[in-house]
């Protein structure tokens, strides 16, 4: 620390005296940066902190967090096995039924694991969408962060796919082989029609929306219901309750995503937060919690993230700032 820097030099520096050369400036800046007490006395610094103790706290915080995350990763892996297990059960079920027809006396069914696991997958990440045609001609639009498994399922007695995320199906009609979507414990069965299924692991509900024709929607435990055009069926993911049905919904609002349209009507911002997060691959933080309760009405058509944020900020009377992939919303 250089104690020889005079206060008049500091005044020269702060007020921008042209007589100071670059070396002087660097010297003064260096002096100011090292003298916390002086900085405090001219009102531009907080109390001096004990950096060593602070560093220790930082390290403790990180290791604690990492331990906790290890624990949750374990949990997540357990959870992850559930759908795979379910797929196996479903596949076994198909084999059992066909086996019962063919060799009805066989009691001990020894299934081939490879055959069951031999599935094909298409998937999208956050911020990605995809369109695909399955072997039977069915057109599929995959929403963001979605995985669709098929393969063996498509050549069996039924056409079967396994969904996690959101997808819109335009199913090629085949009365002899129904098309079945398994999603988070729900079963959606159609013959030839247009519909979507939304089943994200984080969402409370699994939703089916019918755009054309008729769809049977239900779960393993309860009776399924028949949904027709303009109907929305939903099942609570946690308790697999009975299907509740909404009629005459605004189809564009639920299906517009496949054409890049996001439409919200009086939606609680906190509820649709994840939608934006998946769509734009961002993470939203509310600096002021109350903003979660504000309601958004609006439609976005293939708009850039910046435009969308601007529109939201204006219509909900708040401010935002972006930092990498993190978006912060705050009161005005």
């Amino acid at each position, binding site marked *: 620390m250089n104690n020889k820097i005079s*206060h008049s030099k500091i005044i*020269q520096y*702060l007020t921008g005296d042209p007589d100071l050369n670059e070396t002087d400036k660097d010297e003064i800046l260096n002096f100011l940066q090292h003298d916390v007490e002086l900085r405090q006395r001219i009102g531009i610094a*907080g109390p001096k902190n004990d950096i060593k103790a602070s*560093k220790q706290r930082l390290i403790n915080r990180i290791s604690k*967090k990492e331990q906790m995350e290890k624990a949750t990763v374990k949990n997540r892996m357990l959870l992850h096995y559930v759908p795979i297990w379910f797929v196996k059960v479903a596949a076994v079920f198909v084999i059992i039924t066909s086996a019962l027809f063919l060799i009805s006396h066989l009691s001990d069914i020894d299934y081939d694991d490879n055959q069951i696991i031999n599935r094909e997958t298409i998937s999208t990440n956050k911020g990605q969408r995809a369109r695909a045609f399955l072997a039977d001609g069915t057109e599929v639009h995959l929403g963001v962060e979605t995985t669709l498994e098929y393969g063996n399922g498509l050549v069996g007695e039924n056409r079967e796919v396994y969904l996690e995320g959101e997808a819109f199906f335009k199913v090629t009609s085949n009365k002899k082989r129904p098309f079945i979507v398994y999603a988070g414990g729900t079963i959606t069965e159609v013959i030839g029609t247009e519909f979507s299924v939304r089943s994200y692991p984080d969402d409370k509900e699994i939703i089916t929306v019918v755009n054309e024709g008729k769809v049977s929607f239900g779960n393993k435990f309860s009776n399924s219901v028949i949904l027709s055009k303009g109907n929305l069926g939903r099942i609570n993911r946690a308790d697999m309750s009975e299907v509740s049905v909404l009629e005459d919904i605004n189809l564009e609002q639920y299906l517009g995503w496949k054409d890049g349209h996001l439409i919200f009507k009086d939606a609680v911002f906190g509820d649709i937060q994840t939608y934006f997060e998946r769509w734009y691959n961002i993470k939203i933080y509310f600096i002021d919690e109350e903003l979660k309760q504000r309601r958004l009405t609006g439609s976005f058509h293939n708009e850039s993230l910046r435009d969308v944020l601007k529109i939201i900020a204006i219509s909900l009377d708040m401010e935002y*700032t972006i930092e990498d992939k993190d978006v912060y919303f705050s009161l005005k």
Partner: protein
Amino acid sequence: MKNVAINNRDMILLVQIRNGDQNAFTDLYDVYYQSLCDYGFRFVNDPDLMEDVVQDVFVWIWEKRKYWNPKPGVTIRAYLYRAVHNRVIMKARKKRYECPFDEYTEENILHHQPQVDEIENQRIQNAIKESIDLLPEKRREILILSLIQGLTYEEIASILDISVNTVHTQIKRARKLLRNQLKPFWPYQDQAKAV
């Protein structure tokens, strides 16, 4: 330290942190911890809370170290200041934290035993403090980032989301006010040139 040297040092730290080097990570914390706390202190009442905020930023960096990649043109320190800005300043502006400023400085001055030759210095310090207080909030922030924290105009522009030109004008205006306020202490030989 020159800006180029600072950038080089930070870039090396960044690469090491990305590779999981904990020492590089705590080195970076060493370098910026106090400055970042200083930067936020006018807006956050509580030093512990301020420490939490700065640590939040570093925890976040450590978690995402593999992908930590500030945009081209954004220096690492600008990135850090911006992160603190987002978490603290923006929030505080709305909530109008009480300025903790007087509390700390009064205490410091009371516990400080002035020597005879320091009395004049104290007068000057008080005058500087008072004139900095007079600055509008945003202008003061820009002045401090530039003249005390030593950031470049480009860095300040990227932290505050304003143009380099605005930074320039704001600093010019801040200096004008300081010049007027600190007139009695002017050391200039030729008083006219400073105006």
